[in-house]
């Protein structure tokens, strides 16, 4: 099977607050640095990516953040408009139909439509060619910073739901092509971002099962984010506990330093236990991303995380 760098359609999801966006940008950067022309697609979120590259917030238009790395962050309305215009070709018809008050109100409440058009846009870019009648693919990879678990899963289910609900029309065909792309284990993959903590790990295990079973999609990596680098080895951690124990409850200068050390050692231990769990279940390859102590996300942190991806994937290549 092709490794991550040879995939073309990559979806990153996971529990809320685990750092999906950071991981997605860093992953896209890793692709770009290997000379891959990559499009990072965000799903209508307040953009924080533009600023990291000294650019204005990313919106509906594709912008180049740095060499080979492009980003877009459309709203479902943008995506729907783009799609409808592409099909209808005539703006006049588009306006008469889609801008009609009743229709736009109706479309607003159509369940799944926002998800469908957003996924559709990502699909379009995966297929996009340089020439009108073919040519080279415009993008080597499309990386999607997908919504958190529940909504993310719904996003991936939507083409199949549409396929079941409709019997004819263009949307059925599009939906079928999307289902085929998601299930194409050579081209597409899904990565689950998690923290090494109880609830995110539980969600990771559950999500993995559902993605494989309900979507039929390949799960590539579990990305364990924010792992504290180990400072104290086993005996040192035990000595620390012992010292704090004899020092007692006093949190003066020494007490505070010892307590902070014990906190670090215990947190790291806890992370270790959860990493161990992740190795067995879901049992897919794992990338550990170190905790970033910097005050805010900057280019340097992203480069470091990108290095971790590259190394982890190279390592996996060697062991195979």
């Amino acid at each position: 099977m092709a490794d991550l760098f040879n995939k073309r359609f990559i979806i990153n999801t996971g529990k809320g607050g685990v750092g999906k966006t950071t991981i997605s940008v860093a992953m896209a950067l890793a692709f770009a640095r290997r000379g891959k022309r990559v499009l990072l697609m965000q799903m209508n979120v307040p953009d924080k990516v533009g600023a990291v590259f000294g650019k204005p917030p990313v919106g509906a238009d594709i912008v180049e953040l740095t060499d080979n790395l492009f980003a877009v962050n459309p709203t479902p309305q943008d995506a729907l408009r783009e799609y409808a215009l592409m099909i209808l070709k005539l703006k006049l018809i588009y306006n008469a139909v889609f801008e009609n008050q009743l229709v736009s109100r109706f479309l607003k409440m159509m369940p799944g439509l926002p998800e469908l058009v957003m996924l559709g846009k990502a699909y379009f870019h995966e297929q996009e060619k340089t020439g009108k009648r073919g040519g080279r693919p415009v993008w080597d990879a499309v990386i999607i910073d997908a919504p958190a678990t529940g909504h993310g899963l719904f996003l991936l289910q939507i083409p199949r739901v549409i396929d079941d609900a409709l019997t004819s029309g263009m949307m059925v065909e599009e939906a079928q092509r999307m289902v085929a792309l998601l299930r194409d284990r050579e081209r597409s993959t899904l990565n689950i971002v998690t923290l090494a903590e109880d609830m995110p790990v539980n969600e990771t295990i559950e999500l993995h099962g559902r993605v494989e079973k309900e979507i039929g999609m390949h799960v590539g990596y579990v990305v364990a984010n924010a792992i504290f680098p180990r400072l104290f080895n086993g005996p040192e951690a035990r000595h620390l506990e012992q010292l704090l124990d004899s020092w007692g409850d006093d949190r003066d200068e020494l007490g505070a330093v010892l307590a902070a050390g014990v906190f670090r050692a215990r947190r790291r231990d806890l992370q270790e236990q959860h990493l161990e769990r992740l190795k067995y279940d879901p049992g897919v390859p794992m990338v550990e991303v170190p905790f970033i102590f910097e005050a805010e996300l900057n280019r340097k942190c992203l480069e470091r995380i990108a290095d971790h991806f590259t190394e982890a994937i190279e390592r996996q290549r060697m062991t195979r």
Partner: protein
Amino acid sequence: MSVIDTVVSESSVVVVVGSGGVGKTTTSALLAMHAAISGKRTVVMTIDPARRLANSLGVDGIDHEVQRLDLSAFEEFGVEVKGEMWATMLDMKSAFDGIVERTVENPKERDELLQNRFYQFFSTSLAGAQELSAAERLLEFAESGEWDLIVLDTPPTANALDFLEAPNRFFDALDNDTIRWFIAAGGKAAKRGGSWVSGSRGLIMRTLGRFTGAEFFSDLGGFFSHFSAVLLGFRDDAKRTQTLLRRPDTSFVIVTSPDPQTSKEAMFFRKRLADYEVRLAALVVNRVREFGAGGALARDNEALTDAMMQVEGADLIGRPIIERIAKHLRSNSDQLRALAERDSATVDELRALLPTDSQLVTVPMYATDVHSLLALERVRRDLTGREQLPPRVLRRLARHLA
């Protein structure tokens, strides 16, 4: 009395909102637990089966059925439990089915609707359906008069107030005109074989039909003609829910983490709650990293090693090892201090932005997951401003409970 004591003693409904991953479910459970301990008959409505949390309270998991949780183990901590804690998980599908069963009287029509492919899709996927079913269940519980306090854990959404707004948006979009138009257009299209409906309506149906297939609209029209009765039932309930949420004994609690992006969202929620004229009682900041600075000692290897050597038992470990630990302790203090300073700055910013009648509560980040009874009790004490059990007692209890 702490803020949280006031919230639980003066409210009949507490709505917990916040972004994903901030500890909303755990906080909701703790609020309910605290209310139960202080004597209220409390129910928590969660959106997460929260298995580990449920396990530590003596049940396998939480589902649609309301079940009682056993708090007697808290007596280990010298806590007297005066009330009851019950829990239920919000299940969108069951809530929708419940409404259909209540509103559609003809059993044949009812079964048809429950089996309809559009109904099955709408009841699980409709924008706002989850929020709507949460609101329904809340109303059902509030009107039953069986509970002293209802704690509602809301779905995590990009906009925490979807819970309040989604039902409205939903009714707005489903305004009778819209439905009537599509039922009529769908009906005509079906009658005339899917095309050649005249005028602008015809253009619209033909154009949309290219995307969806022509039968879609007649099928949908058929569905809506049954479903509109159900929707009217919802609309009436939604109005009563809005009234309930604005009552003075309904309190909102925002939960956030000290992450700058998340706290920005929390402040956005705060503003929206104010626009909505509901009462924000407290802002809970979870997982605040609090570490003592360690002063000059944390910056001087030599002095730190000397101080550590004075601790009982250090001589048995030996100076070379202590020295090595001291070196790591120094870099640890530097790293963690930076995190603590950042969190404390965020908490200050949040506090400055809060209205005067709401209060901020911080809960520190622990070295362990919050699932064991002991951990829950520790957070409950932090959340409600009670003194912690002394570390020695904690260690004894930890051994005893293990």
